[in-house]
């Protein structure tokens, strides 16, 4: 980095979902000129994702009860257009030496890599579905719950005519409701969490009564429309001729084997934070017992262990879109406070109070919809665990037996699990559970997959040509 470049350092926000947009607007309102970088063409993140130009359904049709919030996020940047640089369709693929490596495309569609130094950084990188595979999960017709929702929201398409939503978490019921309203047949909603967990979680869920009521509404609506809802189930296998999806086999709470005919399946067990960039920025991580994953350490305002680096929204731990808006604003205020700039103390107090409420609610959600205990116990050796490299459970077990790795990165080096294109986003949670089970160690004791830049695949043409002479020893 040259001296000239350092004079133009600006705060950078990664992610233009509810957390990132609120952070950007808060910094701009305080007179700063942040850069907002996002992979999508338009703001909203995945939760408030905007369809491409040409699709015309209004927010009410796309986001239901959340339409006003979605519209507010979509329009929040416009008043600050002169202050916020919004880099759209831009991937952050690495963080190194106080700068981001970006990839976007020039006017002719050619990939271009640029370096963006920052003076402080707010990571609002969001989440994807937490996946626990079952035999048949790689077949065409099986999608993540989030993917099933995006097909409907952003493309007006469903993942089938007769669809099952399976796994656990509040998204199961919301997406089943959205599909049924769109005209699909929802053949079943299969929740691995026992119903009694929801009763135990009730006191905590009352921290956000509006959200609880919406959840109850979706469930009641589905019941009234004769959609079969089952809790406490075990998912067994997806089957169909020639690699297609024709049925989901499952075991009900009473231990009876059952089968539901379907041509599409949405699968997910809650959400999983996207933490690769926080890792590359050097943030310290801690194992979170409730989420059963490693998350960047942070204070209640979003400060990480690295000065000037903040995390906000679902990328910092799953708490939902409303919490993400509050967390994005709070992280931006922390950034201002840390620079000695004035902030409104009553606003800080109000946000801290809201965030505490969201924390109670999201803790209760993990109680209501936990990752199924003992998931790794009786997986068949033949099941594919890693969809990128097509590595089976049996291969992992064999590797554990012969090479006795006790840590996930060692298992990755030996078996290539987590080394494929997705870098363990889809298989990492499952691989950790399998390794923990096979070695008899707690998941917290086997570390987490270390991210490698580029954190997503890049066209080879993106990388800058080496400077002449650089390779000379």
């Amino acid at each position, binding site marked *: 980095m040259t001296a000239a470049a350092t004079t133009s350092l600006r705060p950078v926000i990664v992610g233009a979902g509810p957390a990132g947009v609120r952070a950007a607007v808060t910094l701009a309102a305080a007179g700063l000129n942040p850069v907002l970088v996002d992979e999508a063409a338009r703001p909203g993140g995945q939760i408030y994702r905007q369809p491409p130009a*040409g699709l015309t359904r209004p927010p009410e049709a796309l986001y239901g009860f959340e339409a006003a919030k979605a519209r507010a996020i979509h329009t929040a940047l416009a008043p600050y257009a002169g202050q916020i640089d919004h880099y759209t369709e831009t991937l952050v693929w690495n963080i190194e030496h106080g700068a981001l490596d970006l990839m976007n495309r020039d006017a002719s569609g050619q990939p271009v890599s640029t370096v963006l130094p920052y003076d402080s950084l707010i990571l609002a990188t969001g989440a994807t579905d937490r996946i626990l595979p079952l035999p048949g999960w*790689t077949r*065409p017709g099986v999608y*993540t719950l989030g993917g099933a929702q995006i*097909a409907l929201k952003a493309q007006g398409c469903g993942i089938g005519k007769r669809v099952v939503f399976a796994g656990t978490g509040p998204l199961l019921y919301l997406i089943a409701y959205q599909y049924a309203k769109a005209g699909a047949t929802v053949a079943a909603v299969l929740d691995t969490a026992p119903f009694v967990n929801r009763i135990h979680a009730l006191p905590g869920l009352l921290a956000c009564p509006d959200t609880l009521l919406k959840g109850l509404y979706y469930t009641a609506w589905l019941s009234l429309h004769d959609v079969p809802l089952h809790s406490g189930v075990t998912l067994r296998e997806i089957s169909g001729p020639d690699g297609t999806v024709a049925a989901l086999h499952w075991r009900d709470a009473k231990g009876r084997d059952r089968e539901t005919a379907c041509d599409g399946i949405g699968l997910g067990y809650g959400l999983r934070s996207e933490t690769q960039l926080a890792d590359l920025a050097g943030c310290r991580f801690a194992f979170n017992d409730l989420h059963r994953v490693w998350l960047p350490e942070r204070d209640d305002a979003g400060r990480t262990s690295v000065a000037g680096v903040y995390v906000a929204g679902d990328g910092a731990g799953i708490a939902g879109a409303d919490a993400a808006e509050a967390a994005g604003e709070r992280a931006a205020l922390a950034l201002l406070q840390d620079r000695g700039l004035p902030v409104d103390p009553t606003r800080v107090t109000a946000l801290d109070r809201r965030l505490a409420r969201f924390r109670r609610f999201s803790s209760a959600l993990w109680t209501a919809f936990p990752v199924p205990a003992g998931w790794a116990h009786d997986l068949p050796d033949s099941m594919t665990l890693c969809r990128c490299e097509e590595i089976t459970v049996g291969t992992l077990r064999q590797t554990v037996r012969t090479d006795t790795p006790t840590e996930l990165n060692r298992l990755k080096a030996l078996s290539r699990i987590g080394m494929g294109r*997705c870098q363990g986003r889809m298989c990492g949670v499952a691989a950790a559970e399998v390794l923990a089970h096979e070695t008899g160690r707690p998941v917290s004791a086997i570390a987490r997959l270390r991210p490698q830049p580029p954190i997503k695949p890049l*066209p080879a043409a993106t990388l800058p040509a080496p400077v002449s002479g650089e390779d000379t020893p």
Partner: protein
Amino acid sequence: MSLLVRYAEQSRPPVHFFLDGQPQTALSGDTLLTAILTCANRLRQTEFTGENRAGFCLMGACQDCWIQVRRGTGPVERLRACSTLLEEGMSLSTSATVPPVMTGAAS
């Protein structure tokens, strides 16, 4: 045989393209993934076992929908089908075979 079902927004203008050399029609605003899976049952075949895949996360995370694409007489590009919009006349491949150069109108 299609995998995705259109439930809404079906009155958009058509976009013509080639899928494994055959002319096909999708709608303006479709991603490559939507365009392919509303007229076929796979996006690609895996490198190791050759089994069919049709994407998974639809949000640019799982990387299971990279396909080979050719625009006109241009070079073959690898693009992520869930996050790339279809363009008129694109030639797309759902196998390891490179998409053929297709001249003339796709309709």
